[in-house]
C-alpha cells in the first residue's frame, strides 16, 4: 500500500545505499550485537534453569509455563509496557529479546540433558565423577548438539525480532524499515529486510559450522 502510493519513487535506489554505507554497517553491527547479547544472556539464564528443571522434575512445568507465557506476549505490547519503567534503552530492548529466547533455550537444555545415555551416566558415576564433574564433563557436552539446535532457532527468531525494537530507538536494521515506513520510501525498507534475512541465514550457517567443529564425535554415526 505504502509502496503503491509513492508513484514517482523507484522501488530501490542504489545510490541511497552508496550514500549510507557507514550507517548500514553500524546498524548491521548493532543488530548482530543486540542478537548476540540476547542469546548470551538467555543462555546464562536457561542453562541453570534447564539443569534445575532436569534435576527437579516438579520445577519443570512451572518454569516452562512462565517462559511460555513470556513467549506469547505480543512483542509490540511488551516493549511499550517496558518503556514505562526502563525507558528507551538497550536494557528495555534486551529484557524483551531475552524473554523470547527462554522458552526455546530451556526446552532444549532439558531435552539435551534427557538425551544423555543413562549407561554413560551410570558408568561415569561408578568411576567416581562428582556431580559437578558429571555436569560439566559429561552431561552438558553430550547435551550440546541439542542445546545448539535451540540456539540456532532462538538466534533466527531474535534477529527478526530485533527489528521491532526500532520502535524504542534501537532496532539495528529495523531502524531502516521504520524510517522507510515513516517517509514512504521503499529503499531503506528493502535494505533493512534483505540484510536482516541475510544476517539470519549467515548466523544459522555459522552456528551449524560451529557444531561441526565442536562435536566431531556426533558427525559420523549417532551413538546408540
Amino acid at each position, binding site marked *: 500500500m505504502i509502496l503503491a502510493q509513492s508513484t514517482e519513487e523507484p522501488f530501490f535506489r542504489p545510490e541511497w545505499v552508496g550514500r549510507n554505507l557507514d550507517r548500514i554497517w553500524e546498524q548491521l553491527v548493532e543488530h548482530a550485537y543486540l542478537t548476540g547479547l540476547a542469546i548470551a544472556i538467555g543462555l546464562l539464564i536457561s542453562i541453570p534453569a534447564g539443569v534445575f528443571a532436569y534435576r527437579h522434575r516438579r520445577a519443570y512445568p512451572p518454569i516452562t509455563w512462565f517462559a511460555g507465557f513470556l513467549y506469547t506476549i505480543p512483542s509490540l505490547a511488551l516493549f511499550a509496557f517496558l518503556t514505562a519503567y526502563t525507558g528507551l534503552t538497550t536494557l528495555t530492548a534486551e529484557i524483551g529479546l531475552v524473554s523470547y529466547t527462554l522458552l526455546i533455550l530451556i526446552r532444549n537444555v532439558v531435552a539435551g540433558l534427557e538425551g544423555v545415555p543413562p549407561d554413560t*551416566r551410570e*558408568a*561415569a558415576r*561408578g568411576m*567416581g*565423577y562428582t556431580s559437578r564433574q558429571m555436569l560439566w564433563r559429561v552431561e552438558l557436552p553430550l547435551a550440546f548438539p541439542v542445546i545448539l539446535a535451540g540456539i540456532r532457532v532462538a538466534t533466527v527468531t531474535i534477529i527478526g525480532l530485533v527489528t521491532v525494537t526500532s520502535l524504542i530507538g534501537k532496532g539495528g536494521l529495523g531502524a531502516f524499515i521504520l524510517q522507510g515506513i515513516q517517509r514512504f520510501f521503499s529503499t531503506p525498507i528493502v535494505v533493512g529486510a534483505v540484510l536482516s534475512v541475510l544476517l539470519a541465514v549467515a548466523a544459522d550457517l555459522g552456528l551449524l559450522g560451529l557444531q561441526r567443529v565442536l562435536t566431531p*564425535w*556426533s558427525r*559420523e554415526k549417532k551413538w546408540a
Partner: protein
Amino acid sequence: MGEPHIRLVDVVKQFPNSQSLAVDHLNLEIEEGETAVLVGPSGCGKTTTMKMINRLVEPTSGQIYVDGRDVMEQDPVQLRRGIGYVIQTIGLMPHRTIAQNIATVPELLGWEDSRVKSRVTELAGMLELSIELLSRYPSELSGGQRQRVGVARALAADPPVMLMDEPFGAVDPIVRARLQDQFLDIQDRLRKTIVFVTHDIDEAIKMADRIAILNVGGILEQYDSPKEILRNPANDFVREFLGSERGLKRLALIKVSEIEVEEGPVVAPGEPVQKAFEVMESSGSTWTSVVEDGELLGWVDRQALEGKARVSDAPAQKFSAFVTADSSLREALDSLITSETQVAAVVWEGQRYRGVLNLERISREILA
C-alpha cells in the same frame, strides 16, 4: 589367608516402595586375587549386591568392608575411583575418543599426561586394541572392541578390586567366548579381586574361582568353587539352576593331568613278542601300547604279533583318540565318543606317553 579382601556382613537392601527385600542378610567373603561370580535369576539382587560395594546403592543395614575398611565410612567418590567398574552396556563417553575414555579415571586422579599416555598404550596392547583405534570415537567401534575398551577403562588406574556387571553380555557368543578367554588370561597375570555378575551359569563356571548362587529376594543358596557346586549342589534350587549336563560341566573343569591316569599295557619295540603277550595277559587286554624311550609309537594287538619274533616286526597302529594332559575330561570324553574307540592315549609335550584313558575311568570321576 587372613582378612578377606571384600567382606559383606549381614547386608540387607530394601528399596523404597518395595515390600520385599532385594538382598536378604547376605554374608560373603571374597579373597584377594579371586574372581567371585554372583549368579542367579532376575530379581535375585546380584547387581544390587555388586553396586553396594562401590556405594552406587546404599545398603539398608549391614556392613561392607573392602580392604578391611567399612565402605560407608569412606567418601563415595574416592571409593569409586579406587574400584574398577564395567557394566553390560559399557557406557563409553560418546564425546570422548577411545584414548580419552580409557584415561578417564587416571585423569580424575590427576595423573601426569605422560603417565596417562603410556598407561593407555599399555592397556591397548594388553587388550589387543590397535593403536589407530585410540583416536576414534566409540560410535566407530564394533561391539567387541567397545567391550574391550570398557575393560581397559576399568583397569586404567590399576585398581585392586574390579566390579563387572555382565561385562561380555552385549556381544554374540563367539565374540563373548573370545573376550572371556582373553580376560581369563589377563586375570591370570593381574590377580585382581573381582566381583563378576552374570545370569549365565556357564559363564559363571568358566570365569569363577568361587560362585555365589543367589535366589529371588537376595538369598544366598550356595557359595563355593564351581567344581564343588557341580559335584555337590546344596539344594534343589541350585541343582535346577545348574541345569542339565551338570556332570559334563564338571568334567569340563577337570584337567586330565589332575587325575591319575592308568599306565596301561606297554612294551618297547625292541622286546620279544613273548614279552608283549605277558604284558597283555597281566593287564587283561588284547593289545598293548608300543613306547620307545618314552615316545609313543602306537599300538599292536595279539593277532598282529602272532608268529613274529620282536614287537617291532609288526606295524604299530596309530591311536585314533589322543588327549593331551592339559585338555579337560570333557574333551577327552568327546574324543573317545567321536573316535568310536574304547581307549584314548594320553600324551604330553607332543608324543610323550603318559598312559591311557577309558570311559570307565572318566565315569569314576563323574561319580567322585
